[in-house]
Structures are given as C-alpha cells and as structure tokens.
C-alpha cells in the first residue's frame, strides 16, 4: 500500500517534470555544452586515444554548470509547489506528505542521472565520431586498454551520480525551508558556496560530497594520460560522503514538511 502510494506520487511528479521546460533545459544544457569542449580539448583522429576528452568534457559541463542547474531547479521546483499551492492540491489525493516529498526527490534523482548520462553519451559519441577510441600507450607499451578505460569511465560516472543525488537532497531541503522559489535558489547556492569556501580551510574537503564531482573525472583523466589513479577508492569515498546527505537531508525535509502550513 505504502509502495503503491509512493509509486503513484512518483508517477505524478515525473509527469510534471517531463512537462517542465526548465527540467528539459537542465537535462540538455550539459549535453549541448559538449559542442564547446573541443575548443579547450581538441578531438581529432591522430592515432592516440581521446578518452581524456570525456574527462575534460564531463568536468567542464556536468561537474559545475550541470550540478548548479540541478541544484537551482530542484530547490525552485520544490519551493514553488509550496508557494503557489500546488503541493496542497496534490495532497488532496490519498498520498502522505512524505510520499509526495520523496517522490519529488526521486524525480530529481532521475533528472540528475539523465542529465549526466546524456552528457556522457554525447561526449562518448563525439569521441567515437571525431577521435580515436584506442587505449593508452606510452613509450610503445599499452598502459591501459580501451576496455579498462570504459570500466573506469563508468566508475567515474557512478561517483558523479552520487554527488548529484546528494546535491538534490540539499536542494529539496532548501526548498522546503524557504517555501519561495527565489530565496530557495539563493539559499541553495549560498549553502553550496559556503561549503566550498570553508571545506579547504577547515580541512574537511575529503568528507564533502562535492569534492567527488571533479575528483572522479580527474582520476579518469589521469588514467587516460597513462597515470595510475585510485578510481575505486574515489568511488567508495563518493558513496560514503554522499550517502549521509542523501539520507539525512530528505529526512529533515520530510520532518519540516510535516509541520508546514501548506496554505499559499
């Protein structure tokens, strides 16, 4: 019964997301930005593997612009439902507040996954069409095969997705706390900025989930340049740092949402 209610709520939120132009923008912008990446990292057929193009492309498109778009969209989407009474009207149906909020969060997770997946596929296609998909050779010796790089690329993708999911959780919490789209976006960005500003001086950078975003692709890029990189450890760290945020922020958001007066 509970699962059924959640599934219904999720279907509703997904349908609403698909109808949202802003969501399409979030999903498509990183993939569209791929067209500019060859300016900073040309990709040509010269017999040398171009997998590091993917590392550069994902870093340039998903890790900062895509991540910020997702944060803002998630916070605005959550807060606007509270501000314009949409949440109230949706809860007329037989679903609980927690189901509604978690369904919204799940839709955000899906959007983050689709956004980064679309960017990855686009980068891969560009490399496949314009560059070389050979492994890494240095000094006449094959250091990493193409298959190894594919697996490593997928590992980096997993680390990225976990960081995006954690970002979504923070944005949902900000949306619930503020109730208005503008302040929600500002609060989310401020939270991100503050975290980024203090994590290095406080020495907590390794335990902040946002660090995993670029670190994973840096590791993949190092592999593409013939350097050994502890990508497995990076993924584990990404999961370990993201999971508490993924659990705690929605839980706090649900608790706050339960107390909220939903009158617009």
């Amino acid at each position, binding site marked *: 019964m509970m699962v059924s209610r959640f599934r219904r709520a999720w279907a509703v939120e997904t349908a609403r997301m698909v109808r949202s132009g802003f969501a399409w923008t979030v999903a498509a912008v990183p993939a569209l930005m791929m067209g500019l990446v060859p300016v900073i990292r040309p990709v040509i057929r010269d017999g040398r593997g171009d997998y590091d193009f993917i590392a550069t492309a994902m870093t340039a498109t998903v*890790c900062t612009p895509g991540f910020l778009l997702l944060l803002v969209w998630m916070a605005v989407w959550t807060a606007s439902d509270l501000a314009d009474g949409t949440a109230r009207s949706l809860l007329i149906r037989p679903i609980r507040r927690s189901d509604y909020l978690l369904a919204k969060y799940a839709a955000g997770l899906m959007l983050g996954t689709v956004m980064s997946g679309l960017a990855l596929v686009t980068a891969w296609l560009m490399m496949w069409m314009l560059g070389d998909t050979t492994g890494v050779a240095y000094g*006449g010796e094959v250091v990493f095969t193409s298959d190894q790089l594919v697996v490593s690329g997928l590992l980096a993708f997993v680390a990225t997705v976990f960081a995006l999911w954690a970002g979504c959780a923070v944005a949902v919490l900000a949306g619930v706390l503020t109730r208005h789209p503008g302040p929600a976006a500002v609060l989310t960005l401020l939270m991100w900025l503050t975290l980024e500003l203090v994590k290095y001086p406080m*020495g907590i950078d390794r335990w902040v989930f946002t660090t995993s975003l670029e670190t994973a692709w840096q590791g993949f890029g190092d592999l593409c340049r013939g350097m050994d990189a502890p990508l497995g450890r990076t993924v584990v760290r990404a999961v370990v740092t993201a999971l508490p945020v993924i659990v705690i922020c929605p839980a706090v958001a649900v608790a706050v949402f339960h107390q909220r007066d939903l009158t617009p």
Partner: protein
Amino acid sequence: MTRVGVGLMLGLAGVMAGMAEAGVLVEVPGLWAGFAAGPAARVTGNFSHADLNDDGRADLLLEREAWIRGAGPGWTRKIPLPGGAETDAYDVDREGVLWVISGNRLSGWRLAAAEDGWEPATDEVSVDEPVTGREPALDFGCARRRFLYDLDGDDQDDLVTVTPRGVCWHRRQGAGFDAAGRVLTPLPEPQAVYTARGTLWPPGQRALCLPGFRFSAEVSVGADAILLVHGEESAAGMRWTTLRYPIFREGHSVKTGEGTRDTGPPLPPDAVPVWLDRDAGRPGFARVYREPDSSGIPGEAFAVCEVWEPGETSSRVFRRPAPSGAALYPPLADINRDGRLDVVLMTVGLARRGPRERAQELLTGNRLQVEVSVWFRQAGGYPREPSWQDNRTVYLDAPPIRQPRMLEAAARGQLASLHGDFNGDGRADLLLRERLDQVACYLCDEGGCARQPVFTVEVSPGEAVVPADINGDGLADVVRVPEPGGGPARVYLTEGNPQ
C-alpha cells in the same frame, strides 16, 4: 599492580630506546650542505670524515678545522687545519696522516698526542706529473685533482693525480711519494662542457670528478680498472664513450692494459652517466625533466625520469604528476643500500581533484601533497609498478595564492627528502617539513614509511633542512642551514638503532 606498573615503565623505556631521537644540537660554523640537483642524487657539502686519532671514530674535516669526535655523538675538540691557503686540498691516508696538498707540494701531518695541534709526519714532498700527450686545445690552467689511493696493492696509499692530460700515479715511498709520476691513462681531448652535475661512482672506489673545470670526461679509479666516460656532441645527440683500462700489478709496479672502447647510441643532450649497479662495467644514463600535459590545463605537468640501461637504446620511463613551479627532486638514489640505484620520484603540489577544486584550494587551502613513488632496482632492472607509494600532507602558512614561505621551500625542493638513514637499518628514511617551523622524520622500510614520526624538530622559518651524516656515526643528522648571512649551520645529532 606494582608488577604491571614496572612492566609498563619498562615497555615505555624500551619504546623510547628504540626511537632515534634528534638529541644534541650543535652549531657548526662554516658548514654548508645541500642536495645535488639532477639525476645523480646525493647530499653535498664541504665536509668529510676521517679517523685522525685512530680511536675508531670518524672525525669531521671542515674547510678550516678538524673536529675530533668524543665518546658520544658530539665533538670534544676543534683544531685548525695546517696549511690554510685557499687552494689547499686535504686527504687522509689509511694511517690517519693528514696530507695538505698545495699544488705540487704535499706535507703530511699527524694529530699530536694531546690532540691540541699537529705534528709533522713527513718532510714536505714535491711531485710532478710527467708531461705527455698534446696540450689540450682548451685552456684549463692548472686544473688538477690529487687524492690518495692504494693502486699497487701494498696497503699504502699512493698519490693519484688527474690532469686534463691523463691519470698519473705516484707510488708511496716510505714517508713520501715518487716525485716523478707515471702516466697510467691518457685522457681524451677535453671538449665541450656537458651538463653532468657530478659523479655517482660505485661505492668502494675513489670518486673523482672535476666540477670546477667541467671536463668532458669523468674518471673513476677502481681496484681493477680505470674508467673514463666522456661524451661528444653530434647532430643526432650526445654520444657517450666508455674507455676501460684494466690495471695490472706486478710487484710494486702498476700498469694499465689496452683500453677497451664502448661507444653507445646517441642520447638526448641532458642525459648524464649514472652507475645503476655498483659492479657494472659501464654506466647507464638518466635524465629528468618536466613534461607538459596534453590536456592544456595550466599546472598539469609531469615529472619524468628516463633511465637507459648500459648499452640500451630505448629508455625506461617513470612519470608522476608534478605541477609547474615545484622543484624536481633528484630521482636516482640507492635508498635501500643494496648497491643499485633506485628511482625515487617525489613531487609536491595541490591534490589532483580537477580545475575548479584546484582553484578553490589555491584561494582558500592551506595544504600541499607530497607524493613519493619508489621503484627498487632489482637484478633484472626496475619493476613495472612502483615498489611503494606514499602521500603526505604538508601545511602551508597561508593559502597558496598569497605565496607563503612554504611554497618557496617547495619551489626550491626543500620540503622532503629520502636520503638519510636515521636509525641505521640501511634504508633511507623520510624527512618531511610538515610545517614552516617543524620537520618530522618517518622511518621507512621496503614496504613504505611509518605513519607516525619517530621525531620532530622545531626549525626557524628561513632555514633549509638537509639530512646528512655530519658526525660520521652512520646515522643521518638533521642539518639546519640558515639563510645567507643568518649565522652558522646547526646540526641535530641523532642517536638510534635499527629497531
């Protein structure tokens, strides 16, 4: 309870006894020490050791003084050296006689019984090397190096002279030397100066290089052979030739046999000869350089060490990320004292986490990563993967954007070293400047370095810190080299054991 207490005290005492402690702090005026740059890794300095009073303990020879070591790690007496001219050189023979070498004149001095001065051990001796061969085209003036070495195997040190024309031998005769030397080996015509920083000769041989004159040949006088290594520039690169002259001994006579010539393939101009194995008959070659990265991201670069096995045309390449600006540490050193040169790539920089994270750390961070990768040389060469790798964090005194003093130290290559053996186990240990005012020593073995420091030393912000065995007890000491004009160098003398 009493037994438990006593046991705990004894255990604690055992742990403390097992630790090498930077114990005695001594000021050593006139001492300087530093790292050699380039592939030949070693600690340089203006000091040497010799047992002058035959007590089995190495005494310290500085440019102007001899420091006599006592029963402990420190010294009990300081005695000015005889001679004293700027050009004087010193060497000590196996009987503890200090020879003052002033041009063609030598005088032997023995430490007085009261250890408060010097007594003449010999009359002044004049020697002259025979003039053979043609005058070198380049003017090397009175370029000459003399040192003591037993060439004829009679357990007495002879005098060996190396000039631009060749290697000469003056046999020991009683208290002096043969005045007329014998040319053992002519040197090739001195030519262009190559970029070799010095020599790293096999242990057990008398090392000799002529850095002051930048000869294009390096000479190694060993027990069985005299080796000459010299390079000639060509359009294809530097072509190195190894000349090996076997030494034949007949009674008290020494002759060198016909030289064998081994000319290698052309190599890059910055490759220098290095003795990869102690007993190798000919040198390998190595070079170190910074390779810009292909991704075009500023600051992304690699430290590359290339090593050519003797006679090989292809090189083995070792690469690690190394941001621009930070010094490249000397990558070749025998850190496990097995007579083979290991590759040690030590790089310093911000953590590799992507461009945005790097920018943030540049603006707000206060740490640098020191990465150490070691490839132990084995009988068949180097392993494919590093034998061990380690990452250490050092703390800056300000964010990198504000150019903290620690960043200057990093740029000069003074943050970390893997040269000194602090506990006498035969393996080099890691000396790391963790903060501007603190240096820590981590014991290392075949598997890596300990996580906890065995000792820490407070240092002044302007000082450079170098590990070097100053008191000759086989354990590295911590040399605190001040800024120019900043007073004498200070040395923490360590005591310890392999456990």
